[in-house]
């Protein structure tokens, strides 16, 4: 029993890797090979699909657009969530519990529900097809999440640290930025990780709120899938490239994943 235990995660990881392998394999095949029939690995290895993506602005700008609004959203979410999480973790105030629950309930709002009203709202205020529109829209579910995660980490910092700083004479904001924020750096990293993740993977709102200028890579891909028929190699290459930012982020937080997923609450 003990000896086969490692098989469980091992098999699971193999299961995880198979589709990723297939995506990569496809991306190195020519359209002819793909349509010609089944092949386990690329017989005619080609980088053409990648070359096309890196030379065609409609493709590579998609990445730039996606990364732009994801980064804006991550910074914005964490920045506004920090003081709010501090308030929730340190004070009681009128309506605090209701407010907290209401914030979290927004995480339960199906994006499909908001797609149309968002389109109208952001069109009305002239932000349609801008990065900032997507970044703001993603705040709907990322800000509550960031508040919740940060609140967990902040509650782990003894309140005496705040008292000590006030006693030493620090004004609130100086204490907050100079002492408190560095003290929960790990929590900020985790919150940023989750914001990045959920903003990067979301498509419905991002697609609804953009048309040309801020079009995300994910939307470019769906267009390719529908208009250019069977350009599967290109699609696979584009897909493979979307894995890279995620892999990059994971590499950075590799030592904190376990702690990160405890969300500061275990």
């Amino acid at each position, binding site marked *: 029993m003990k000896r086969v235990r490692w098989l469980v*995660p091992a098999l699971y990881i193999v299961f*995880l890797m198979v589709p990723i392998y297939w995506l990569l394999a496809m991306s190195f095949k020519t359209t002819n090979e793909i349509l010609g029939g089944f092949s386990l690995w690329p017989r005619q290895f080609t980088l053409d699909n990648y070359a096309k993506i890196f030379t065609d602005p409609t493709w590579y700008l998609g990445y730039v657009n996606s990364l732009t609004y994801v980064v804006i959203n991550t910074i914005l979410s964490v920045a506004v969530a920090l*003081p709010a999480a501090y308030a929730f973790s*340190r004070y009681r105030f*009128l309506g605090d519990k209701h407010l907290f629950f209401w914030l979290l309930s927004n995480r*339960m709002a199906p994006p*499909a529900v*908001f797609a149309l009203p968002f389109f109208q709202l952001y069109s009305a205020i002239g932000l349609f097809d801008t990065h900032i529109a997507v970044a703001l829209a993603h705040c709907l579910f990322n800000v509550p999440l960031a508040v919740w995660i940060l609140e967990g980490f902040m509650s782990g910092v003894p309140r005496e640290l705040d008292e000590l700083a006030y006693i030493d004479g620090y004004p609130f904001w100086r204490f907050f930025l100079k002492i408190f924020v560095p003290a929960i750096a790990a929590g900020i990293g985790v919150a940023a990780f989750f914001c990045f993740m959920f903003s990067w993977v979301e498509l419905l709102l991002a697609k609804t709120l953009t048309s040309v200028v801020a079009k995300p890579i994910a939307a470019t891909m769906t267009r390719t899938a529908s208009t250019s028929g069977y350009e599967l190699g290109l699609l696979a290459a584009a897909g493979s490239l979307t894995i890279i930012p995620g892999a990059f982020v994971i590499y950075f937080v590799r030592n904190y994943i376990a702690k990160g997923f405890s969300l500061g609450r*275990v």
Partner: protein
Amino acid sequence: MSAKPVNQRAWWLVLPVLLLVAFNAVIPLMTVVNYSVQETFGDNKFFFEGVKWYSEVVNSSRFQESLKRQLLFTAIALAIEVPLGVAIALAMPRRGAWASACLVLMSMPLLIPWNVVGAMWNILALPDIGLLGWTLNKLGFDYNYTRQPVAAWATLVAMDVWHWTSLVALLAYAGLSAIPDAYYQAAKIDGASGWAVFRHVQLPKMKHVLTIAVLLRFMDSFMIYTEPVVLTGGGPGNSTTLLSIDLVKIALGQFDLGPAAAMSLIYFLIVLLLSWVFYRVMTLDEDPA
């Protein structure tokens, strides 16, 4: 530790969040509510209709069918992913290089854009040239997810398991890592069997994270949209048309704003209600008896 002090000025700290989320949540929600009680024939002319759309939606077989499919999908997803995730977390190495390797590899599906997940499985499952489809057909199964509802469902479920089991596993793993060694040592000394350790030490200590995992998985599987749209487009027929897909079809495809809005609100309320029920059930025995 003494209780948190009361400080009404804390509102100033919450204000930015409040404004930002309210802007994103309240205005669109009001729009939806507004649509849901009105009829329009274009030209920006609206007529008050009361609860007509609501009763229409609730009574429509189309909505009921979508809801049933949605509930079934969520139930299957939870039934597979939660036990599987926990099992993986239990079997994972506790520390060392292998543990980090597992964590990194397992996180990967979570960071792939949802439409890419759909596209990836689409490519994988193509009956003639996809690795999965080709292999299944070679093995003698008649498999074509674009034509057979059962195959479409199976592929959809496999995809969701592939995509999200890691989340449950990572949360469970985080919960397990937080159990002090003394608990395992005490259980060892008490002569507890592996099952007893799981039942009386690991499971109770994982309860918090499992509650979070179940809630997240419930919400996200209930709201799933992008992946099935890319994979099956709701087909064959309507066999994999889940709630979100149906909603977007009505709202953006047919521009039936009234019914779409009413359906949106009903949908939102169902998610809220079920989340609350889940939360209550899972934290039931926490109140001091």
